[in-house]
């Protein structure tokens, strides 16, 4: 289908050719040296540090709508897709579209590379006043591709 071709085309544009082979090689090597959970924790901390550097972009948000807009301004600057944040019953649904994680580290590494966005959003909500009893985690089964679904709520 045309949409699949378009998606493949634009996904190939997400990561710089200068770094793509290095990132893929790094992901392959790390996968052999460490297990997926450890890698996910590593990337979780990387994501937290990433959010600390971007704190100016979202610290002034007063509502979920403002937070979504601020984050999307930030993501669009660095070509990291966009995010939809909604309050759903007892948690916050985070749908991050067109994230370059799968293209950068490979679809098979998405199991642990998703930790980067988990750590990022965890830091975002912590800075905005959420308690430490609530965590960001993957929502549903891991899926290959550019879309990442997370949820922020009480630890289960």
């Amino acid at each position, binding site marked *: 289908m045309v949409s699949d071709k378009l998606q493949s085309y634009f996904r190939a544009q997400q990561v710089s050719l200068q770094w793509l082979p290095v990132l893929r090689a790094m992901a392959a090597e790390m996968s052999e040296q460490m297990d997926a959970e450890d890698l996910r924790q590593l990337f979780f901390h990387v994501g937290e540090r990433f959010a600390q550097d971007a704190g100016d972009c979202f610290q002034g*948000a*007063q*509502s*979920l*709508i403002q*937070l*979504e*807009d601020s984050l*999307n*301004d930030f*993501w*669009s*600057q660095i070509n990291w897709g*966009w995010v*939809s944040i909604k*309050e759903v019953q*007892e*948690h*916050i649904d985070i749908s991050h579209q067109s994230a370059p994680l799968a293209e950068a580290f490979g679809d098979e590494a998405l199991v642990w590379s998703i930790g980067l966005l988990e750590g990022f959003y965890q830091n975002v*909500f912590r800075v*905005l*006043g*959420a*308690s*430490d*009893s*609530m965590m960001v985690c993957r929502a549903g089964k891991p899926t290959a591709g550019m879309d990442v679904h997370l949820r*922020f*709520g*009480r630890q289960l």
Partner: protein
Amino acid sequence: MPNSRDDLPMLFRSLAPDDTGFQAAVNASARAAGERWPLLKAVSPKKPNSTPALSAQERQYWSNPAKSDVGQRKPALSLPGASDKMTRSLGRMSVRAVSHPPASDRNPKRANVSTTEISAVQVEPEKRPNVARSIQPTAITTTAAMKSSSTLFSGRSQTRADEAVDNTSGMPVNHNQPESRAAMEKAANATPVDASLASVFSRIEGKVTEVAKSASKPSSFLSRLGRR
């Protein structure tokens, strides 16, 4: 020594630079360049054809274009504007009104009034989009990339606004206008659910069981909630 001013021009002429040597050098260099680069010979500029002479009619046109018939051009066809369309529609309606007058009243004055009323109703919708278009989007971001993203994401935000806002003003809802975000914020404030992050976190943590309770006393209830 020159004794009079008449000798000065002759003196200056005698002091004029002798450029015969310079010219000879230039010519020689041109010949040498042509020999070194034969292309220069091949692309040597040719004298253009002489300008054709003007005919009497053309001469008359150029001398006095205002009076000449040659200069007169037919007006270009113009695209029909809104006034043309309105004229045509009014004409059609007037024909219909005359041929099929209302059964209740066959007074020609009434027919003209109804035509006027119909035309007024037809004119009215055309005014409405201008009001929506006149509202300029507020600047939200600082870079061009940010602006493109705000319009990209304003569509989904407007969907939530439409769900929350009951549009009773009769204004057409433009989903691409960022001012709908302001309407969404107002709607969020108007509804009982507190949209602030603190209340969101409280609800998620389970501190608030019913949303309606928080709506009844927003100021006093939320003031007792504190951040951990």
